[in-house]
């Protein structure tokens, strides 16, 4: 919808650099000149104000290129016509929009000027009209100008008394102005020849310009006479080349005019209309001239002032008038300005940048008063918000560190601007309007959807309680649990809808008897239900003769594959997200005291917990301090050796234990299967899962006893070592079981070995669940009783997050492996997780106290998810890949019966497809992409190259970050050095001449530019960072 604008902005872009350059130039001049001047003669209070002003103008001007540039460029009165010409280029945008909105606003303005018919009227009216206009209750432009321009105007008020003498001049000059503005539309109309504006301007203006020159020069004299030097310098100087070198000035000004002209031509038809208001404008002024010629002296003197604005103080006066008349023009301007930004910025970069830049004033020098929107940054912000998509805009508004009211106003302003745009565009094409309303509807529906989703979010209240009592670290365990639960719910939904329901429709009668023991063994009755692989048919399901057919074989393999692939990606993405959030700068991660101080856990709300946390924190701070004190104490060689040997011994013992467990499990499994074959006792199948669960229960506790012997300096290290040992144990047990299943059970020639594996996994899961329940209810409870009653020195235990999370990971791994053999496993896991949540919650509330150490919970979460991904999920993928590609499915049961390998179902499917001409593309994709070695080879190569490149980029950025960091430090040093020097200078100066204030002032002022520079540096750094952060998003 803003395409038109954007185009326009784009067209203007070539001119843009020119503009900005020249603008910067003059601006620089202006500023620098203003500086010393104001330093000198002006009194302090004025000075400080005017000092700030150039700044704000600066920053304002930077974005507001076309007009603002025009300002300094056309300070002279001569430039007036030209100026309005250029003004028209931004203005044109405005007037393009004129038909839409300024009408109601502009109208009153004009009317005001007409009715008053003299300049004071026009001057004051727009102001009042602006503020009165209910459409823009908070019209930023107006206030902005009031604020930032008021100081430059000071001189104007000084001028006033000067004027009456030269009343004629301003009078005619103002007429010249009006003529200028009147002729403007004229020559705009004939803008075809870009040279003409100049020539025409010459021909048109001699009169007025001569006049205007006069006031200019006269003003200068007056000025020279009066005390306002800066204005001579700042305004007079640029005036002169313009006014005096008439041949030069057209050239000089012709350039911007061109762009205007080009613009006009670019938007040919459209221009006619907006020109009219201009013409009207001119007429108004013309008419206003007539009363002037009648010389009502009283109004005259006051009328001069604004006319003077228009003329001599062109740079200041004109924009004021404009902005008064159309205070939205600021917004328009900002739209324009935003467009190039939008082009280069690409979305989200923009708001962050703006946000950053906004942060800075808001804390640096608090915006004067409560009119936050008058600062230039606000306009910039608003401007950058407008071209954004609505979602991003809301995001950007939300992320503003402002009060609600400000945000609301901002939103209102932006929306208004947007709606204006869209209304305007509506004239062009109504389909954009359609798009608009669709996007609005989409936004609404999205809101509703997110509301729905958030309403499903489980256990909100419980989480709050847990967080309030135990802090974020313990909460992370429950978060992880909930996350796994969602995972399983999703898997269950997929398998249920694509495998289980179709199978239900063709299920035969189950002839086996249900005894109840099946709940534990998973065998018997259950083996003839949808729970296990063996029950599924290999036929094509078809209801009715003409109904759609459903190939169970393909459905089975595709559903499982889809499930795993989706799991893979969601794991990958959440892992990446965690990594991005938590390991932003791992290389500068230090075990700092700072994090202890500034990372108070705001989630804790429980009184006792708060007190405990405070106590723990003080101990930790104290420990940290003592650590710092002892940091340099080196251990003796002997101590180091003993420590090393202890670690080594601990590792040897732990690996030994893990190996022993694995061997034991393997032999038990092998012997157990032989034993089972001979005995056929339904309960004896529980032996293996029981042993495995016992190992899982006992060995980790044994491991954690190592910490009594091993003394790690850093508690985090201890936790990581413990985690690694535990995960090695659990994964190797699962690995050995997988080996047993795939190489012994699958090849033993049993009928329906897949179902047997499914049953094994079911039993393992169930036993694990029972053990955790027992552990929670008995073990933890007993521990509490012991801790509270008998050995009070032990106290309450702390919740072992690592061990509990590892249990969850273990169970989840089993579920993933088992999904292929027992499609109902996600459902079972869903139920167990659900129960576990409540059990753990109750046990937590009863038996535990909050952890005493500050736990790097989020980092741990990252680590957990990584563990879930790396050994666990990848291991599962390997196991299943081996199963599907290498193993022969059992001959008499399951959907793949009779096939040499599972994967053959895909091969035969492709074969059938290749016979149908309509599906040849699938075949092609399969043969050339999925089944092709070359494709994967090339793909791997490309991925490797990209990875390498990214790696290099990261390295480069690291260096960059380091350099920037050093730069910040250096600048801080610079600043300190300068301040020191200045104070020294000041002291000597004071000693020499105690009455001097000049230096003091310069001293106050000196750090300022530095500050700005520093801010910019920091901002840039942060900006870069935010870009970096956002990059993975993009």
């Amino acid at each position, binding site marked *: 919808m803003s395409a038109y604008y954007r185009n326009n902005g784009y067209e203007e872009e070539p001119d843009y650099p020119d503009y900005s350059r020249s603008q910067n130039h003059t601006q620089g001049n202006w500023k620098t000149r203003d500086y010393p001047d104001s330093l000198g003669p002006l009194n302090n209070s004025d000075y400080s104000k005017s000092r700030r002003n150039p700044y704000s103008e600066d920053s304002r001007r930077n974005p507001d290129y076309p007009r603002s540039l025009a300002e300094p460029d056309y300070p002279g009165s001569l430039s007036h016509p030209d100026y309005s010409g250029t003004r028209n280029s931004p203005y044109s945008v405005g007037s393009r929009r004129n038909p839409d909105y300024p009408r109601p606003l502009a109208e009153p303005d004009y009317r005001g000027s007409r009715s008053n018919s003299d300049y004071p009227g026009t001057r004051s009216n727009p102001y009042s009209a602006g503020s009165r206009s209910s459409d823009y209750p908070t019209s930023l432009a107006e206030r902005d100008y009031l604020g930032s321009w008021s100081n430059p105007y000071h001189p104007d008020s000084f001028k006033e008394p000067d004027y009456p003498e030269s009343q004629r001049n301003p009078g005619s000059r103002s007429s010249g102005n009006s003529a200028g503005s009147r002729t403007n539309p004229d020559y705009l109309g004939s803008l075809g020849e870009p040279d003409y504006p100049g020539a025409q301007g010459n021909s048109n203006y001699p009169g007025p310009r001569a006049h205007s020159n006069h006031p200019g020069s006269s003003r200068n004299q007056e000025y020279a006479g009066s005390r306002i030097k800066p204005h001579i310098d700042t305004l007079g100087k640029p005036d002169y080349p313009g006014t005096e070198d008439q041949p030069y000035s057209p050239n000089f000004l012709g350039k911007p005019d061109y762009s205007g002209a080009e613009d006009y031509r670019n938007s040919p038809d459209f221009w006619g209309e907006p020109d009219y208001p201009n013409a009207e404008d001119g007429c108004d002024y013309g008419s206003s001239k007539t009363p002037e010629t009648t010389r009502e002296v009283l109004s005259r003197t006051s009328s001069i002032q604004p006319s003077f604005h228009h003329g001599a103080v062109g740079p200041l006066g004109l924009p004021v008038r404009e902005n008064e008349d159309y205070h939205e023009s600021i917004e328009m301007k900002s739209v324009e300005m935003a467009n190039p930004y939008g082009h280069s910025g690409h979305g989200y970069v923009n708001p962050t940048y703006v946000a950053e830049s906004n942060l800075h004033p808001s804390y640096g020098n608090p915006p004067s008063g409560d009119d936050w929107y008058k600062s230039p940054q606000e306009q910039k912000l608003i401007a950058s918000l407008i071209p954004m998509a609505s979602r991003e805009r809301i995001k950007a508004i939300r992320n503003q560190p402002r009060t609600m009211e400000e945000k609301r106003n901002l939103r209102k302003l932006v929306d208004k601007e947007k709606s204006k745009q869209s209304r305007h565009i509506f004239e062009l094409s109504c389909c954009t309007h359609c798009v608009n309303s669709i996007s609005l509807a989409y936004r609404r529906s999205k809101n509703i959807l997110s509301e729905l989703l958030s309403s499903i979010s489980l256990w909100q209240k419980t989480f709050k309680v847990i967080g309030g009592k135990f802090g974020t670290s313990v909460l992370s365990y429950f978060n992880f649990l909930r996350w796994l639960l969602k995972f399983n719910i999703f898997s269950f939904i997929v398998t249920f809808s694509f495998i289980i329901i179709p199978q239900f429709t063709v299920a035969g009668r189950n002839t086996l008897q249900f005894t109840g023991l099946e709940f534990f063994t998973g065998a018997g009755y259950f083996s003839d239900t949808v729970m296990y692989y063996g029950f599924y048919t290999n036929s094509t399901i078809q209801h009715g003769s003409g109904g759609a057919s459903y190939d169970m074989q393909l459905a089975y393999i595709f559903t499982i594959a889809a499930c795993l692939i989706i799991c893979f990606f969601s794991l990958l993405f959440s892992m990446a997200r965690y990594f991005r959030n938590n390991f932003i700068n791992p290389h500068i991660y230090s075990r700092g005291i700072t994090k202890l*101080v500034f990372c108070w856990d705001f*989630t804790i709300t429980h009184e006792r917990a708060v007190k405990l946390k405070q106590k723990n924190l003080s101990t930790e701070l104290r420990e940290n301090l003592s650590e710092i004190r002892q940091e340099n104490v080196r251990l003796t060689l002997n101590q180091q050796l003993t420590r090393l040997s202890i670690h080594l011994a601990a590792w040897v013992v732990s690996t030994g234990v893990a190996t022993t467990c694995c061997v034991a499990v393997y032999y038990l499994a092998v012997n157990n299967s032989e034993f089972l074959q001979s005995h056929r006792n339904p309960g004896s199948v529980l032996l293996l899962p029981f042993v495995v669960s016992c190992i899982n229960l006992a060995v980790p506790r044994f491991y954690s006893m190592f910490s009594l012997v091993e003394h790690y300096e850093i508690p985090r290290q201890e936790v990581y070592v413990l985690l690694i040992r535990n995960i090695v144990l659990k994964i190797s047990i699962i690995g050995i079981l997988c080996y047993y299943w795939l190489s012994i059970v699958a090849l033993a020639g049993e009928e329906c070995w897949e179902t047997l594996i499914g049953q094994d996994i079911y039993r393992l899961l169930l036993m694990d669940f029972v053990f955790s329940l027992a552990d929670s209810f008995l073990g933890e409870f007993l521990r509490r009783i012991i801790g509270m009653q008998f050995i009070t020195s032990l106290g309450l235990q702390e919740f072992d997050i690592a061990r509990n999370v590892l249990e969850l990971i273990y169970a989840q791994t089993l579920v993933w492996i088992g999904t292929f053999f027992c499609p109902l496993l996600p459902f079972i896991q869903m139920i167990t997780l659900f129960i576990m949540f409540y059990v753990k919650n109750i046990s937590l509330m009863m038996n535990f106290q909050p952890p005493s150490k500050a736990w790097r919970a989020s980092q741990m979460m990252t680590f957990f998810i990584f563990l879930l991904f790396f050994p666990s999920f990848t291991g599962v993928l390997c196991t299943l890949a081996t199963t599907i590609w290498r193993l022969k499915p059992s001959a008499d049961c399951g959907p793949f019966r009779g096939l040499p390998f599972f994967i053959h179902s895909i091969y035969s499917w492709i074969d059938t497809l290749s016979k149908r001409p309509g599906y040849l593309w699938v075949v092609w994709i399969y043969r050339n992409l999925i089944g092709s070695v070359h494709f994967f080879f090339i793909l791997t190569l490309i991925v490797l190259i990209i990875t390498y490149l990214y790696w290099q980029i990261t390295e480069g950025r690291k260096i960059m970050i380091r350099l920037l960091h050093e730069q910040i430090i250096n600048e801080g040093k610079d600043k300190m050095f300068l301040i020191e020097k200045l104070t020294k200078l000041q002291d000597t100066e004071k000693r020499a001449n105690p009455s001097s204030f000049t230096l003091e002032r310069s001293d106050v002022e000196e750090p300022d530019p530095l500050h700005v520079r520093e801010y910019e540096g920091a901002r840039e750094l942060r900006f870069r960072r935010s870009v970096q952060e956002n990059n993975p998003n993009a």
Partner: protein
Amino acid sequence: MGNKQTVFTHEQLEAYQDCTFFTRKEIMRLFYRYQDLAPQLVPLDYTSYPDVKVPYELISSMPELKDNPFRQRIAQVFSEDGDGHMTLDNFLDMFSVMSEMAPRDLKAYYAFKIYDFNNDDYICMWDLEQTVTKLTRGELSSEEVTLVCEKVLDEADGDHDGRLSLEDFQNMILRAPDFLSTFHIRI
């Protein structure tokens, strides 16, 4: 759900939704929480933007803030005049920033303000001492507190000007991954 129309107009709710990280339902819940704080003070009709402020004493009695050592600072930072008395807008603002969805930069900005006790836009030594004292409930001796503060300045002060600017603070926060999850008040 049905009576929400009487509290806010549709536009108001939408504006709140756009300006905070909350859904409609959460906004209503927060409103009722707010209203519960001072039922005789807060009207049930907000369509005309009534100018109501709930005094700090009531705000700080909320269970979410009651035991927070920084409750006063939080209320001051988010209240309009820095006195801790909050309008509904301030109230929503506060919980929006403290919500899970708020981005790191926003949170860091307000955390900085909270820790900046004297509102001079820098966290200076004095601010740090206040913070540490609040954190430890006076369990550390003044010497230890000073040592901790010096250590903090030493670690986090990027430009070595003896105080923490917002940049320093944000930079430090980047290195503290837990900040996002801990600077969070559940409602």
